[in-house]
């Protein structure tokens, strides 16, 4: 195995993506991701220095909206499909740590 990506890398990535992997999954996903990255090695052979990245096929600019209030959602309707709500708010378990 070429080890382009290690189980440590995958564990770190899983944590960033808020996914929990069992040890067997960690091994399996690492192998599978390694195969994909192995295929992606072909990109490393290309000379791309002079090319502008193309992030978007549309290449549009200045799509803007007038500053006018539009339709709103009904709170009670929306909260009815929330996993948990309380006093018009979404209820979640305790949050540890502040937002960045």
């Amino acid at each position, binding site marked *: 195995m070429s080890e382009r*990506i290690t189980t440590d*890398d*995958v564990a*770190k*990535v*899983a944590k*960033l*993506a*808020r*996914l*929990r*992997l069992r040890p067997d999954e960690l091994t399996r*996903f690492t192998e*599978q*991701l390694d*195969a*994909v*990255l192995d*295929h*992606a090695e*072909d*990109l*490393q052979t*290309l000379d*791309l220095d002079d*090319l*502008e*990245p*193309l*992030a*978007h*096929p*549309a290449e*549009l600019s200045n*799509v803007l*909206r007038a500053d006018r209030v539009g339709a709103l*959602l*009904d709170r009670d*309707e*929306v909260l009815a*499909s*929330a*996993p*948990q709500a309380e006093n018009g708010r*979404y209820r*979640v*378990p*305790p*949050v*540890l*740590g502040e937002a960045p």
Partner: protein
Amino acid sequence: MTAGDAISIAASVRSGERSATDVLEEHLARIAEREPELHAFNLLTEEHARAAATAVDERVASGDDPGPLAGVPVAIKDNICTRGVATTCSSRILEGWKPPYDATVVERLAAAGAVMVGKTNLDEFAMGSSTENSAFGPTRNPVDPTRVPGGSSGGSAAAVAAGFAPVSLGSDTGGSIRQPAALCGVVGVKPTYGTVSRLGLVAFGSSLDQVGPFAATVADAALVSEVIGGHDPGDSTSIAAGFPDVSSRLGDGVAGLRVGVVTELTGEGTTPDVAARVRAAADALADAGATVEEISLPSVRYGLSAYYLVATAEASSNLARYDGVRYGLRVEAPTTGEMMELTRTEGFGDEVKRRIMLGTYALSAGYYDAFYNKALKVRRLLRNEFDAAYRSVDVLVSPTSPTTAFPLGARSDDPMTMYLSDVCTIVSNLVGHPAMSVPYGEGDNDMPVGVQLMAPALGEPTMFRVAAELERSLR
């Protein structure tokens, strides 16, 4: 027996010859017969459909014109939002969620008189090429139910192939309309990026996603494209030009058109039976007066890697919102952090997890330049190469899929082999150009073969002309 294509149905409903209700019941009967075996739908919306058909009939009775798709049953891929009707993306994570709005494409279909019959199965969040990655079980190919219908829009392709609806909507991020269209033997179109609104389409790879139609005929696909297309101020990436007029040009023929067969997509990796059908299609176009030449697009081989980095990077971010806080599944836990983690772990299937992790990796510190940014440069390289090709030809031809439909389970253990199913289709998404798959006979196993037509941005009129010619040549 009356004609089953959308244009004929709409014509007879508009003229009062048939009622939308009768048309609907015929289709519901067909669904009742084969749906248990095929599982094209996640949800049938018969009640909603009957009400819509009745409304169409009432409008006809009162002298109104319900529109160009009057009384035409349509099936909608279950990653396209429908107001008050569950939209699951074939994922457990959206359990119980009903969108409070219709996608723009759904609004436009309804405004044209179409009648939604149900929400079709897909690979979870449109990630897959076989419709086996669905939380609700796989869809089977109507031509041979031991085989996959392709994916990710397998349910929508199967629905049209099985006659459940004359037309359906899918979404195409890397071939998710064209590849299942090819495998099920129907027409499937990925329009030019920006010509069809993405508002209400649940995002997978935002810079690649486009909604498009499946149909049994080229003319139906053209009509539905025109109905759903056009500028939408609610989608910043929607182009102002609107959808080009394609229907009126279908009969123009291909005399004088220049057709390029893509060398890199017809050689190695393509099975001989599929390659033979592509050659037959090219010959048919030549017979009809087009000039056909081989054309080389050497960078196409890098498309797959670029695609899997870009699509997964965008997906990793697009799918971050499924966290158990506001809607859908929640797995309770002592802290919000753990709740989010458990919810996502339980809610997503393996393929989605794989792609989220690949995308997260491609964007993470230290790898952005090596992977993501490089992929964007390959995108530019491909765009340049296609632009050059379109200076010498009007349309490009290739197989849609390197093989015909494969048996269920054949590729599900090997993600990389599955990804290779998309090798012919992903480049159009990377560059944002239109492409479509037209059925062109069968392969060795009697399974359908699709020929892919590609055109430059807004080149739909020419692309559809060529498609119509291929269709004619088979009659």
